[in-house]
């Protein structure tokens, strides 16, 4: 197994997780070398940013932190992973005929989010707002997405999908995120021996939280409340401001 210094075992983003002691990197010896190379590279210090401008970073960095609730260290370097991907044009190829290709779509939509900040909060930049106000602006795009509305003239659903797709692809490709959710990652050439409801292989760790008498529904409700507390205070504030100006976009 490759050397790992102390305190780097079982890392999860923000130290959150339900599978204590579980570390997919304990299994590196059971992976093929090509896959190991691809996964371990995600642990390296990211390259310098090459795609986003500094101003775009000031919008993208807090937006990505909010989308994935990464409010403290250790963080999966989502911004850097995303920048690296866009810098080499590694997209899925397709784009909607009313939106440009993904890189340009990112630039355009980050600028719109910054425009929203200025319009709703007295000329402020998105980067200058507190997390609650930033979250309220993001929630507005998500709400429009759910309701099938447009945002700055394009389908909000397409914009929300672009943001979340790139953010989640970067985050859930990282071994720390797999530690958090109990997913063992690469499985070649070892495979699995024990399949079936409730079956575990010896390198898998049981969900610790679920053993406690805290039903899943309650945990989700608590996460919802926490999230709503972040968003709603400011959402109401900016809705008032919005109505005052009588503007629609």
């Amino acid at each position, binding site marked *: 197994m490759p050397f790992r210094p102390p305190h780097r075992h079982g890392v999860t983003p923000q130290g*959150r*997780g*339900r599978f204590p002691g579980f570390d997919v990197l304990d299994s590196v010896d059971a992976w*093929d070398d*090509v*896959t190991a190379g*691809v*996964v371990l590279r995600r642990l390296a210090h990211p390259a310098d940013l090459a795609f986003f401008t500094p101003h775009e970073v000031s919008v993208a960095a807090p937006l990505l932190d*909010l*989308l*994935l*609730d990464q409010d403290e260290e250790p963080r999966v370097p989502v911004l850097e992973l995303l920048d690296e991907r866009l810098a080499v044009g590694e*997209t*899925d*190829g*397709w*784009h*909607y*005929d009313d939106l440009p*290709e993904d890189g340009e779509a990112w630039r355009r939509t980050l600028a719109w989010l910054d425009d929203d900040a200025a319009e709703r909060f007295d000329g402020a930049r998105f980067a200058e707002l507190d997390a609650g106000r930033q*979250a309220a602006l*993001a929630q507005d795009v*998500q709400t429009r997405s*759910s309701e099938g509305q447009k945002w700055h003239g394009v389908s909000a659903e397409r914009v929300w*999908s672009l943001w*979340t*797709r790139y953010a*989640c692809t970067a985050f*859930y*490709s990282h071994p720390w*995120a797999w530690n*958090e*959710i*109990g*997913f063992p990652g*690469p*499985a*070649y*050439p*070892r*495979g*699995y021996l024990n*399949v*079936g*409801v*409730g*079956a*575990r*292989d010896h390198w898998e760790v049981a*969900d610790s939280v*679920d053993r406690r008498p805290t*039903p*899943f*529904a309650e*945990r*989700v409700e608590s*996460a*919802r409340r926490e*999230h709503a507390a*972040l968003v709603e205070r400011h959402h109401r504030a900016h809705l008032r401001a919005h109505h005052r100006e009588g503007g629609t976009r």
Partner: protein
Amino acid sequence: MSRLQSPRSERELRARNDSAWLLPTDGSRTNHRLRDDMRRFDDADEVDLVVVGAGAGGSVLTQRLARAGWRVVCLDAGPFWDPDADWVSDERGSHTLYWTDPRQIGGSDPVPMGSNNSGRGVGGSMVHYAGYTPRFHPSDFSVLSDDGVGADWPIAYTDLRPFYEAIEQELPVAGQDWPWGDPHSYPHSPHPVGGNGEIFQRGALAAGIETRVGPVAIANGRFGHRSHCIYRGFCLQGCKVNAKASPLITHVPDALAHGAEIRPDSMVTRVVVDDESGRATGVTYLRRGREHFQRARAVAVAGYSIETPRLLLLSPTERYAAGLGNDTDQLGRYLMVQGAPQTSGRFEDEIRAYKAPPPEVSSEQFYETDPTKPYRRGWSIQNVSPLPITWAEHVVAQGHWGAPLREYLRDFVHWATIGALCEFLPQPANRVTLADEKDRHGLPIAHFSYSQCDNDRMLTQAATESMEAILKAAGASEVMTIDRYAHLVGGARMAARAEDGVVDADHRVFGIPNLYVVDGSVLPTQGSANPALTIMALAARAADRLAAQARRGLTEQQAVRA
């Protein structure tokens, strides 16, 4: 274990297709010697057939005609994959398996492309398909006559049945005896079922819905020199094990052994047709930055539902000004996708759905038209097992982000997922055209416009309700559904008359006797079945027809008249 054990049946199979025995036995997955020794034709050689695309259609056609003694070159835009060196057991890292050249999507219900429905390189999208290989039902071939919607095929189920049986042996397909459509058995017995499949079986039983294990193109036990499945759950990222069937291991090795050439990294830019003779003379392609022209006595396009129409549109002549096979304005039309909602249910137990092949259990109970319902045709239900990145998409689709998104993802091991394939109807305006935008070769890219009709929406709704009922009956405390699409077929459909399609029942493009389309784009309807097996069976039948004509000494021109 394999039911295909008798020495006689193995001998018969190997006399038709020896691919599984041409793979290495030393733990590696590629026969490099076979590739190094591959016959190589010169551009100036007039080969008997040049095939464009080495996927489900092109690979089977190439293998069959090489066996019949034809000189065949098969060009593919992507790489000649080596599963050991090129594929990874990782969701994010498998991006190279998809066709990622630019494409535009539009219409009222645009269909995202990329990972879900496109392939690249030798093996095509079967490299990363789940592995489900159901047959179509006999009713699929006469939907217009029976139900007044869709289209009739110019061939019947019985025309295809012997080729279904042959391909099922060659993949081989594992599953329980099949009660739906034309009842049949499979050459390999069903695989053991993981947690995800158990939940589907349990819920369906409680809800009064029949299920069966399979049909899955993963050998159960060793098959030739192919290894047994290790239940690692990464079928959709390319099978590094050589257990799941794709043409790369099921047909290409035998094609090479019989003198065909597979020419990878070759992007075909034009099918060249001589207006004076009205015949195709070969194809222009780009390789290592240089333009080449491969001469050929006949051309078969097998680039799938987007690239096949695009290539024919990119190949106009003075005589065929609207593109090849487009004299009646049919090219690119009637492109179909299946509505593919997926429903997940939450269980107290750990399901760990990633711990088995995603394809496990199916139901075709709702496949046929139910006369008591306001919609025509139906859907099938199958296990699917989204890995974390895809699971995040399911959660985001419920409107969650931030802390709730993370909480749902932390709950990954507790969820089981099933998916439906709804038979969306073929419509003329669902079409590939050329966009103004160009790709890096300077060629106009494809624009794919897609809009659903009322019947499509009703099917999605009914399919979703059936899946939610199954998971609740299995004891799910919460269910969530994501709307999505799966598969592509149509765009150059087969028809009895030129007014209704692009190719005839022998896959010959109307008006150009030595130009063929042999891929999923010829399908007039799609049923609720995953299309891979049907595309392969059609290609095997097309090869059979071509070889028979050639044996009778007919030229293409004479064959058309005959």
